[in-house]
């Protein structure tokens, strides 16, 4: 390996409390500088520089889908085919690419220019179909735009292509600056009221900041809805170890594209939220663990962090208060499970993203064995408003026990798919109306990301989009990723695509998830292909029922619950395929 690369790896390693954390960044770096892959020799060199066994480095490299072992085409075309993309016609894009390039998925063109792959959800659900070309996203793709993209790439140019992204901010809290020119710039952020909450926070005792967040009843926006202030309160005190704050920006739940609305368009809001939260929990270092496919959003964050640092908002002795805080942006590399907080911590430590056995919980033993709090992007981005305007003002939004604004990502069969910021507890019907209404006749809807039970059109009537109402309606609010399906949608196909996703993403640690997801996928494949029987349908249901509650982390339930719901509620459709 070239010497400048090992020097670069050394300097990355020096930024982290433990050098093994540099393993993923090193793999990204070498891959970028070695023609898009990391071969055996380079891997051994990386392992040596960082100080891990080759076996473990290989284990890490092969765990993450973004790391390649072999050379690919100059342009790696990756088409998202997950549910929202599927509803938006991704299959047609894949077929079009196969025809245009004369290759099938997984192959490279003879001239070495293009490799075609299908990938899991890229969090572009509102702007699907999406093709990721190397590190760049090309969204709102049509066959015509795909042709234009290919023509440009053949000329050696990564083109700029406009994207039509719909949005609306009813609350003006999390998406207040959406549509504002240069909103990612610190001057625009400050001029529009940013970095004011930080002054108020630094005048308060940290415990008071925690108290205010607790009082606001801000519930974790990652999906579980656990009160953020209460979570902070679990942090182990007096351990003599540092406390770390981690922002979970792994946004990988199919149907979810809310966190990127904040990071891509208003990065300083997240940074301000992290500074205040870091102050509240007594952390001097925070990490933004962002999914690897968002490398280009990570660059936006890095620029914003550099600006904040240059203004003395990050670094040592912030605003003369003696408070030190800095942020490291850490890229994942293609693994859904890393959205689970203990898997995320493992990944941040440079390991395979395998969830840990709990207890101990991260609040006691988190990253590097230290007390750690992991919060979602949207959760942290809500903190500045709470501190600046007070918990009471925050609670003006929403319904009892479900306070605050929320970004809903609406995808699938609506006329204006996109990101919509509304108060928690907004009627689903109102959100659909904001998204231009259902395109066709509503058949079914998934309201909280792929891992929650599907609702029939009938069941969804009257649903309010908050944690408690969703539970009452037999589903979950989850991430607020709403996928709308009209009468043309085949639920067995949706179920098959869903289980393929989970089988692809299972970390493989525990038996029911690793082999259970694989077996359910095989059964559904058989059913959808018309080779199955009613016994297979029963087997799917039996397996789902048995898997629930048995896995090491929530991933088992994440597929068993929604697949069971799809098969149960639309059983006739499955039976029609096997009879």
């Amino acid at each position: 390996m070239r010497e400048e690369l090992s020097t670069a790896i050394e300097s990355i390693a020096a930024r982290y409390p433990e050098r093994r954390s540099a393993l993923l960044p090193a793999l990204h770096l070498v891959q970028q500088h070695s023609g898009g892959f990391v071969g055996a020799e380079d891997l051994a060199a990386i392992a040596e520089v960082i100080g891990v066994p080759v076996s473990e480095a290989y284990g890490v490299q092969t765990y993450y889908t973004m790391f390649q072992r072999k050379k690919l085409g100059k342009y790696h075309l990756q088409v998202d085919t997950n549910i929202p993309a599927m509803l938006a016609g991704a299959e047609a894009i894949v077929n079009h690419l196969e025809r245009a390039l004369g290759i099938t998925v997984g192959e490279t063109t003879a001239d070495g220019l293009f490799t075609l792959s299908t990938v899991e959800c890229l969090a572009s659900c509102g702007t699907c179909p999406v093709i990721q070309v190397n590190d760049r996203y090309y969204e709102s793709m049509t066959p015509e735009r795909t042709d234009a993209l290919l023509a440009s790439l053949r000329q050696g140019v990564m083109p700029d292509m406009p994207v039509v992204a719909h949005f609306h901010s009813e609350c003006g809290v999390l998406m207040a600056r959406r549509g504002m020119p240069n909103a990612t710039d610190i001057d625009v952020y400050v001029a529009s009221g940013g970095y004011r909450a930080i002054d108020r926070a630094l005048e308060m005792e940290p415990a008071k900041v925690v108290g205010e967040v607790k009082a606001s009843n801000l519930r974790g926006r990652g999906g579980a809805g656990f009160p953020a202030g209460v979570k902070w309160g679990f942090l182990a005190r007096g351990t003599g170890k540092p406390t770390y704050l981690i922002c979970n920006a792994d946004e990988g739940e199919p149907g979810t594209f809310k966190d990127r609305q904040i990071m891509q368009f208003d990065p300083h809001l997240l940074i301000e939220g992290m500074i205040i939260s870091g102050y509240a929990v007594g952390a001097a270092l925070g990490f933004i663990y962002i999914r690897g496919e968002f490398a280009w959003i990570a660059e936006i964050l890095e620029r914003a962090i550099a600006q904040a640092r240059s203004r003395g908002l990050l670094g040592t002795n912030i605003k003369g208060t003696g408070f030190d805080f800095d942020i490291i942006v850490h890229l994942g590399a293609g693994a859904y499970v890393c959205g689970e907080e203990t898997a995320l911590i493992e990944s941040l430590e440079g390991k395979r993203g395998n969830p840990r056995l709990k207890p101990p919980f991260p609040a006691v033993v988190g990253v590097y064995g230290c007390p750690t709090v992991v919060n979602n992007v949207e959760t942290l981005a809500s903190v500045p408003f709470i501190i600046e305007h007070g918990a009471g003002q925050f609670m003006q939004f929403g319904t009892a026990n479900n306070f605050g604004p929320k970004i809903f990502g609406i995808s699938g069969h609506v006329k204006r798919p996109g990101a919509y910021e509304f108060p928690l507890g907004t009627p689903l019907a109102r959100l659909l109306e904001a998204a231009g209404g259902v395109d066709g006749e509503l058949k079914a809807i998934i309201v909280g990301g792929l891992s929650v039970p599907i609702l029939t059109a009938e069941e969804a009537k009257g649903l309010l989009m908050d944690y408690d109402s969703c539970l009452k309606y037999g589903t979950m609010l989850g991430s607020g990723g709403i996928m709308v399906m009209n009468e043309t949608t085949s639920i067995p196909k949706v179920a098959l695509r869903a289980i393929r996703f989970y089988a692809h993403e299972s970390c493989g640690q525990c038996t029911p998830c690793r082999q259970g997801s694989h077996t359910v996928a095989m059964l559904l494949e058989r059913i959808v292909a018309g080779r199955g029987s009613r016994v297979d349908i029963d087997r799917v249901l039996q397996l789902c029922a048995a898997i629930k509650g048995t896995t090491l982390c929530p991933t088992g339930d994440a597929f068993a619950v929604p697949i069971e719901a799809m098969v149960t509620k639309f059983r006739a459709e499955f039976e029609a395929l096997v009879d």
Partner: protein
Amino acid sequence: MRLTIDGRSVEAVPGQTVLDAARAAGIYIPALCYHPKTGKAGRCRACVVEVEGMRGLKESCALEAKDGMVVHTATPKVMETRRLVVDLLLAEGHHNCISCQANSSCELQDMVYHLGVERPSFLIESEPTPLDLSSPGIVREADKCIHCGRCVEACQNGVVNEVLAFAYRGSHAKVVCDDDVPMGESTCVQCGECVQVCPVGALVLKQPRDVRIRPHETTATKVTCPYCGVGCQIDLHTKDNRYVFAMAHEGQWEKQPNKGMLCIKGRFGLDFVDSPDRLRTPLIRRDGELQEATWDEALDLVAERLKATKEQHGADSIGFFTSAKVTNEENYALGRFARAVIGTNNIDHCARL
């Protein structure tokens, strides 16, 4: 401290897990990934139990026993989970006890038998993976691997040879040597600790001299390793008074000098005991040829020659070299013999090399 397991009052010590407490009381809970030497892992999900006042299933291997705890190890959900685990593991691999070398010492087999599973619920659809026969002492059969992770933990953090690791993920996850090379081409030093902890037949010893003898046919005798001075405790497995294979003695492993582990010599270097080439009587070279002699003849000859050499060339013309393969007492005796009887300080030991 007492807890109740399946209605029985069971004694436990602070820090003990529910699994250990149950096992100490003779209550069977299957645990495929947990091993006392490699610790809790939470992978297999076989050891889950239900505890009154706690939500959902709990891994008994990771759950600390508490005074007054009420544990149920055979509720419908627990039994359903065990059945699920067995069904999925059987669907995932190619398990054939009839021809498996681990037959009768297989924890999966025990669990299947205990559950009374006659047939797995799902069909096996995968193509068989070839055996890895590349290493001198160990056979790897990936299709029998149940992903328990014991071998990886043992290799990485027990013996710290850092060869075995998990690669890939989901149903493609597998245990690899280094960067997925055959074991014989890897940095593996053949300590065999992976075989020692493997609960199934995925990692087995290559049988010496092509004998086909399975564990239930052998008798284990606890012996001290004859190689170096550590004093490793070995279970020497014999059949009809002949050596078959060796494993580390795991009884009270924490108190053993080798902590239930062995090196390549202790594990694979003992087949000499039955070698026809072994010396059975002393040999004396007469007329250029080694000839059988009695101990009296041999010792007389050595004494006579030592005496003559000392008289002719002085005591320092003689040197002694001792070995770690004999006991401290024997080494001490030779030291005394060199210094007090012969009168030289020329004595050394192979461990200094």
